[in-house]
Structure formats: C-alpha cells, structure tokens
C-alpha cells in the first residue's frame, strides 16, 4: 500500500471538494486539464493541474520541481572554479548575474576584495545580463498573450547585448568570467563605445515595447487588476525583486545593501508601483531595463583604470567557514550560502 504524503492527501481533498462543487452547480461537464510540463506556456518547468468549468478555472494545483537540477549535490564534489562554471547555468538568461554573488561569497570567505575596476566591470556586466534577461521577458510576455512581434524585437535587441557580453567574456550565455579576486580579463578595445550605442538601441527598444505592448488597451485589459498582490501579502509571502516592488514596497538590494559592487557610484532610481497586479510587475521590469541602461552608461563614463585582479594564490584554497551573499538579480533576489 502506498503511503500518501500529507501534501498529496491535501491535494486529494481539495480535488474532491472541487468535484463536489462542480456537481452541485455544474453548468457544463467539468474538465480536468493538465497544463505542462510540455505545454508551450510552461517551458518544461511547471505543471498545473487545472479543473475547468467551461472557461473558468475553478481549481488548480501547480506542481513545481521539474527544473530542480541538484546543484547542491553537484557542487559538493567540485572545486570553486568548476562550481563557477556550473553556477552560470542557474538562470540561463542572466548568467553573469549568477556568478557575481557566488564569487562575492567566496571572496568574503577568503577575505579579499576585487580591485575597483573589476567591481565596475562586474556591475556593468551584471546590468547587461539584467537587460538581456528582462528584455526577453518583455518580448516573451507578448507571445504568451498572442502578440508575435514583440518577441522578435526582444530577440533582435537582446542580440546586441549578448554580442557585448560575448565580446567581453567570450561566452554568449555562460560567460564564466568572474574569478575569485577579480575578473578573468579586461575589456577588449572598442567595447565601451559599442556599449554606448547598444544602450541607445535598448532605450529605443523600451519605447517600442511600451508603444506596442504596454500601451495596448488589450494588453492592459488582460493584465490590469489581475493577480493583485497587496504589499502586506507580498511581504508575508517573502516576495522579492520586481514583484515586491510592483506591490509598492520600496526594496532594492542594489541600493539597500553595500557589497563590493559599483552601485554606490551611480545614481539610479528604484521604481515601485502601487497596484501590485500583473501590469505593475511587467511595468516595473520595463522601467528596470531603462534604468539599467542608464546605470551602464554612467559606469562606462566613470570606469577607473587599474588592474582587474588582485593577488590570489594560484591554487585557490578557500578557508573553512560559511558566507551568505545575496543580490538583486534580474528576476528576483538571489543569495548563495557558501559553506567551505
């Protein structure tokens, strides 16, 4: 006899309740629909078992965990440089942002700090990966709602950013550029000028998306007032990142936390939105792309000269201890708990 976990029992009870409700006041034949993980809207990460009454979802159970890749276990048997290469893969769209907090945690353990130029470049690349990530989100948002054009624009303009990242790091998706104590290499010549051009293009892209998608009444009617998360609920549920700011909570780790990154050198605005609905969340992200382009512009102008690597032993030996570093990643807050 198979033992049901408590969670399975709960979901079974909920399913029964939904059935009972359908039976009492059913208009049509109820239908249990399985959405995902092969569904185009879920990208293999999520499965939702939905019970429909006509067009209305009366009950749904999300079943997550398809993306669990066991990083914790993998990292147990690898060296720090190897782990850095793996960490790249956590969020494919904004890889560089994955590396930074891990490296920072390791540096914390080793009690070293990267030189200022490295910090600057890290921040630039960090924001570039934010742009690459969120701009694709903005385009893909359209596709999920049936608009085909925004995603192509997003891909088009993300390509410039990826080219930048590739030009600097050599890797389009997985830079693996960060090293404990600094960066692998300095920027190639001409990169900064190109970046300036690309940032202009991306601001233009934001305008286009705003006209094409965000200003569209249909889009607004589909997102405004949908999935409202009030500020207190958002705090209770521990939301972070743009989602939290869309609920009106002014909270941004880039500004509120001091890490060895160059955020304190730039002037940027943390956007919040009082509505807390889907539209607010999208809008916040759009504004953050804009803001990121401005941050990059400012950092380029103030890039200090100097080395990009401090002195570190050739064989990295991280002393025993533990460290926790979290940053404001493109999607949300990400933190690494490193135990050596």
């Amino acid at each position, binding site marked *: 006899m198979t033992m049901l976990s408590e969670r399975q029992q709960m979901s079974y009870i909920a399913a029964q309740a939904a059935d009972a409700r359908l039976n009492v006041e*059913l208009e049509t034949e109820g239908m249990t629909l399985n959405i995902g993980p092969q569904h185009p809207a879920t990208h293999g990460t999520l499965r939702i078992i939905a019970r429909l009454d006509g067009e209305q979802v009366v009950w749904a159970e999300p079943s997550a965990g398809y993306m669990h890749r066991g990083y914790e276990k993998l990292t147990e048997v690898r060296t720090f440089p190897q782990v850095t290469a793996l960490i790249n893969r956590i969020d494919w769209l904004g890889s560089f942002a994955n590396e930074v907090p891990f490296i920072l945690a390791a540096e914390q353990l080793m009690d070293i700090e990267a030189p200022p130029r490295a910090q600057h470049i890290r921040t630039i690349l960090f924001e570039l990966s934010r742009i690459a990530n969120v701009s694709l989100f903005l385009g893909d948002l359209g596709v999920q709602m049936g608009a085909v054009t925004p995603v192509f624009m997003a891909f088009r303009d993300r390509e410039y950013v990826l080219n930048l990242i590739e030009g600097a790091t050599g890797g389009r998706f997985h830079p693996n550029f960060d090293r404990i104590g600094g960066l692998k290499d300095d920027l190639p010549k001409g990169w900064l000028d190109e970046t300036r051009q690309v940032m202009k293009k991306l601001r233009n892209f934001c305008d286009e998306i705003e006209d094409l998608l965000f200003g569209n009444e249909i889009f607004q009617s589909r997102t405004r007032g949908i999935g409202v998360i009030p500020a207190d609920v958002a705090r209770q549920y521990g939301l972070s990142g743009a989602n939290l700011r869309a609920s009106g909570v002014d909270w941004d780790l880039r500004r509120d936390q001091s890490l060895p990154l160059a955020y304190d050198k730039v002037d940027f605005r943390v956007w919040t939105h009082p509505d807390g609905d889907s539209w607010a969340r999208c809008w916040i992200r759009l504004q953050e792309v804009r803001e990121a382009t401005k941050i990059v512009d400012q950092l380029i102008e103030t890039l200090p000269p100097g080395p990009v690597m401090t002195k570190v032993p050739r064989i990295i030996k991280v002393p025993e201890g533990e460290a926790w570093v979290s940053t404001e990643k493109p999607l949300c807050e990400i933190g690494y708990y490193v135990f050596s």
Partner: protein
Amino acid sequence: MYAVNFLILAAVLFSIGVFGVIARRNAVMVLMSIELILNSVNLNLIAFAMMNNSPEGHVFALYVIAVAAAEVGVGLAMVLMIYRNRRSIALDELSVMKG
C-alpha cells in the same frame, strides 16, 4: 414538378421525426427529431406557397424557423439544467411526473 413529391417527402420526414420523438432516450436527440418534424412542416408550407405562387407560405416558413430557433434555445437550456441536476439526460429516467 409534382406537388405530391414535396408533400410525400414531408410526410415521410414527419413520420421519421415522430419515430425519433417516440423512440429516442436522449433529450437532445428528441429535440433533433422535433427539428425534423418542423422542417417537414416547412417543406409543406413552401410547396403550398409554390402551388399558390404567393409569399405567405414563405413568410410562415420563416416564422417557423424563428420559433424553432427559440425552441432549441430554451430546450437546450432545459436539457443543460436537467443534466446539471441529474447528471443524465435520459428521458426515461425523468419520470417525476409519473402518475
């Protein structure tokens, strides 16, 4: 063309519809049989209109069509309600009015 052609065709359709009303168990199919009956009536109306060369028959056929549409609407709504309450639309299980 002979008038008999239309009339006999209508009569046959009518009888088939009557059989459907009597024999079918599923409420939706009974409604469909009723549509058959209504259409046979319409055929007659058109045939007679052709016989008299007057538009009245056409007008009546249109009335019948409109009423049939209304009937189907209400009928199907009732079927849905019966289904909602009883999880079945078999007519012989619906014998609440049994004497």
